[in-house]
């Protein structure tokens, strides 16, 4: 029972990550009708915003300390971060400690900019091209972004610790009246879960309750008519692309303490996020969220011992298996609309 509860939590947490990535991807499908294979790269850029923020806060001046020796026996060069020399050691350390959260101030502008440049500079020219071309050009872009990141940050995964306030686990079991320590879950993962829920809610609220969102939704349903009403739908869609990039970037930014970022992390998430989106139904935002959670939970349950005892290795293929079954029984995914992406 406890094991079951933990895997349920784990599935929700995993699903939140999937849903968040799929949401951004679906926003782009739904509005622009573009299949964006560079979405994983956007996720990665977000993750590297955290790394950059961390590096920035750790920018140091070098002081030579004669009392200590380095590995070659020369006097040790001690690095003192500027933040610590400016704000005092305690405050400086606190600021560094929260670098993952502080990265939000870097991630949002960077992602909006990247999204804007990408849409105006590249994607715009591919609206009328076949989906295969869109897939391929964004795939090429993803390779290039990955290589640029590798050039500057190397290929090794980079450790990005979470704020120390979120270290350790929260004893969920005790809070709900179960035996102490039976269901304990890492605090940061719970933070990630609520963060995802917040962003998903924000995106939905934005589309549902603002005039801008209303226009965008109208544009998703019938672009031509909205255009004929004299609304500059293209400009709005550019902004939506920026928002989608932001969602992907934030997902990557907050994920860094869980998964140390490296230049290929985007490619690792790419296939998965596409499966999630397709299972949810192309262009359906609720579908993307639903299928994200569903696949996350299924994957967690598939790694339960009782399951793997019956079918060894099922945890490795469950996502693809479910995707195949769903696509064959529900041709347009869970909540897909007719006629989207079928040409």
């Amino acid at each position, binding site marked *: 029972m406890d094991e079951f509860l933990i895997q349920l939590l784990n599935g929700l947490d995993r699903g939140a990550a999937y849903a968040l990535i799929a949401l951004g991807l679906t926003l782009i499908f739904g509005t622009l009708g573009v299949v964006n294979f560079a979405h994983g790269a956007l996720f990665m850029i977000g993750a590297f915003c955290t790394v950059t923020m961390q590096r920035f806060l750790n920018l140091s001046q070098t002081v030579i300390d004669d009392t200590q020796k380095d590995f070659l026996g020369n006097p040790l060069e001690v690095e003192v971060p500027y933040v610590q020399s400016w704000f005092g050691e305690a405050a400086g350390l606190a600021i560094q400690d929260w670098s993952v959260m502080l990265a939000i101030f870097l991630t949002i502008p960077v992602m909006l900019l990247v999204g804007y440049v990408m849409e105006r500079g590249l994607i715009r020219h591919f609206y009328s091209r076949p989906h295969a071309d869109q897939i391929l050009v964004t795939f090429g872009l993803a390779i290039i972004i990955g290589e640029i990141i590798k050039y500057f940050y190397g290929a090794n995964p980079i450790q990005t610790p979470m704020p120390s306030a979120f270290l350790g686990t929260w004893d969920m079991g005790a809070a709900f009246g179960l035996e102490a320590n039976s269901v304990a879950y890492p605090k940061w993962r719970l933070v990630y879960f609520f963060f995802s829920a917040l962003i998903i809610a924000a995106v939905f609220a934005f589309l549902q309750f603002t005039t801008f969102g209303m226009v965008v939704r109208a544009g998703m349903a019938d672009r031509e008519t909205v255009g004929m009403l004299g609304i500059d739908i293209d400009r709005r869609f550019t902004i939506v692309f920026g928002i989608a990039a932001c969602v992907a970037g934030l997902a990557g930014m907050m994920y860094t303490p869980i998964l140390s970022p490296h230049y290929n992390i985007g490619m690792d998430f790419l296939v998965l996020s596409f499966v999630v989106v397709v299972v949810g139904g192309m262009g359906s935002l609720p579908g993307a969220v639903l299928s994200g959670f569903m696949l996350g939970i299924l994957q967690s349950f598939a790694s339960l011992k009782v399951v793997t005892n019956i079918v060894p290795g099922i945890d490795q293929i469950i996502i*693809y298996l479910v995707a195949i079954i769903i*696509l064959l029984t529900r041709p347009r995914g869970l909540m897909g609309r007719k006629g989207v992406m079928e040409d």
Partner: protein
Amino acid sequence: MLGLNSRDTKLLLLVIALVIFAPFLLNPFPTASNLGESFNAGYPALMQRFVIFGLLVIGFNLLFGLTGYLSFGHAAFLGVGSFAAVWMFKLLGYNVLPALVMSTIIAGIFSVMIGYVALRRSGIYFSILTLAFAQMMYSIAYSDLIGKFVGTPITNGETGLQVYASDPQVLQGANAPVLPHLFGLEMNSQTTLAMGGWEFTFQVGYYFAAFFLVLGFYLSIRIFRSPMGLMLRAIKSNQTRMSYTGLNSKPYMLAAFVISGMYAGLAGGLMAAMDPLTGAERMFWTASGEIVVMAILGGAGTLIGPVLGAGMIKYLENIVSKIQKDFLELWFAFLPDWLEAAVVNIIYPFVGKGWHLTLGVMFMLVIIYLPGGMVEGGQRITARFKRKKKTDAPDGAKTPAE
């Protein structure tokens, strides 16, 4: 000739000439020179890859180029073919013929099963279905999940499947070579011709694989020109209209998918025949992506494009990835120092370990400016060239690139 019109015959003869004289064409620089050490590609292992991947992409093009169905899981059939071939080596012996037959058949069976299911959907749904199947097969092979059921390694996981001395090899004669061979003719036997500073290597394995490339190319011309090819192209231009006219496109699609899968299986079998060890990683989705990249880069839907694209990518992967900084410094040594440093620093990120960057940039440029790939590029150049010579501009650029 052979049921081809004169233009196709010329193309076929061109391909035959290219593969026969490849050892010369790919070694334009003297062997010991700096340029030769860096840019010569006429060594057997790479030439084998040129023709095997050429064959693979020709097969892929029969599906993608003709019907527009983008399979993102084609590498799975390549892998299946390789595994089948190595199993034949293990069970029967090192003769390549049974291995190639079996790899083609097994890949055919897999493609019938996957094709039957995946072709029930179109567009991106089809792509994701093939991707899902391929990734599933990759996971199964990489962790040898079947082997865990059966109790004996089937794919031998990450280390890859290879032939051991303790394998049965029931048909292996006492004096037969312990390397892949065709009735005693060893795949890796070769002869070297030295002419001046040049050395040219002719290898049995390469010509054996090249024979299948030519055969595959010929078949692909015939399919392009057949009523079935027409039908497949109709699917690409408008499947709905086609079904309104009462034609059932399904059998044609499935046939195209299976033929294309069998090409991949044969290519996989040939890879094993050249090098009798195979691993799951050649089934990973990026390997499938590479096939797509090759097809697009060369020119999807054209006859010669796939061969060019495959050659281009393999050249980049094997030649450009080996260029080191000191090579660059050597080439640009004639420049003034500051300029040399600048030039080297600009080029260096694109070669050696950064060759992926070159690939990405080239790929994007081709998709943006040359949707028809290298074939279209070639046509545009010839068209411009001809226009300069004569005043009457030919319609070269507009003719479908076949």
